[in-house]
């Protein structure tokens, strides 16, 4: 009898905590922005990244400053029923697998409330000089539900099958492997 109660309590706890686990989802796209804007569809649960706006920026010519103003503006929607912490990473590659831009941004304070939309700017201040050679990029969303602090995290990755990099690209460096497809 006591064992049954314990099992029920454990099951209840598992059900409650399941949607609160931290997760990550990754998708890869060909580089095809129009006027810097590229529509994407990266979902982690009900958190959705739907648009990236790339800006190749500039540097302060004639000054000792070497930083660039290049960045990407990421649009994020929380379509779920609970508040979430969100982190987004974007890495841009050239055809040879070199990183031409990389960075992350995310929730700085509190949570992205349910139903809310926000924008994060990811800066590319130090590696930017060959961004005009961009050929593909990957986006990872990392989420953590409210009250799941310290919870075990789960990760999953999915690849957009339509946007795999071309096999003919010459790789002079050790390339990054594609994200593994999502398990059914």
């Amino acid at each position, binding site marked *: 009898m006591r064992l049954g109660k314990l099992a029920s309590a454990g099951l209840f706890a598992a059900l409650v905590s399941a949607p609160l686990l*931290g997760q*990550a*989802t*990754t998708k890869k796209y060909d580089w095809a922005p129009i006027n810097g804007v590229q529509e994407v569809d990266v979902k982690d649960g009900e958190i959705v990244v739907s648009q990236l706006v790339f800006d190749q920026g500039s540097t302060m010519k004639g000054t*000792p*400053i*070497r*930083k660039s103003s290049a960045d990407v503006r990421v649009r994020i929607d929380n379509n779920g029923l609970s508040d979430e*912490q969100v*982190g*987004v*990473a*974007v*890495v841009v590659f*050239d055809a*040879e*697998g*070199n*990183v*031409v*831009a*990389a*960075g*992350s*941004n*995310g*929730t*700085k*304070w*509190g949570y992205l409330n349910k139903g809310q939309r926000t924008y*994060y700017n990811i800066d*590319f*201040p*130090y*590696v*930017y*000089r*060959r961004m005009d050679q961009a050929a593909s990029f*990957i986006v*990872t969303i*990392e989420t*953590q539900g409210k009250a799941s*602090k310290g919870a075990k*995290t789960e*990760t*999953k*990755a999915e*690849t957009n099958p339509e946007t795999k990099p071309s096999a003919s690209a010459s790789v*002079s*460096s*050790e*390339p*990054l*492997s*594609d*994200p*593994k497809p999502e398990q059914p």
Partner: protein
Amino acid sequence: MRRALVAAAGLAVSVSLAAQQRTKTFDYKPVDGIQSIQLALDEVTVDQIVFRTAKDVATGPRLRSNSEAVLRLGNASPGPVAVGIAVVALDEGGNIVAAGSGGTRAGWLLPGGRESVAIRFPYVYRNLAKARKFTLTIEVEPKPSAAGPAPEATGQ
């Protein structure tokens, strides 16, 4: 004829001074956070990376991790350079668990110079302990010869 020669010389200079990149992927095997690596481009080298995974991620409403990677780079080339370094750490499933860039903020890294570059991972950090490999790209921009004297570099 003279104009053509000048244009050709200008093109040659601009090509030789264009930023170059090299990329290498490593297994994630730090010992006490420290991992020796070898990545070099035009005698600009990265030979060590130190991963610092924040044990105390900011608590309360303010969310920002202190996790970072600190890279040691040196310039053994004969000229001053500006250097950018990107780090992308991935888990087994190919998810980014940390990503960022660092490098020369101002001035140039002088010949024989060495500096540490800190790359912070403030917002995507929760799965850093699951990293399986990391990719480093080094980007080197030689100083144009027509510029004035090179001030000392200030890295991040």
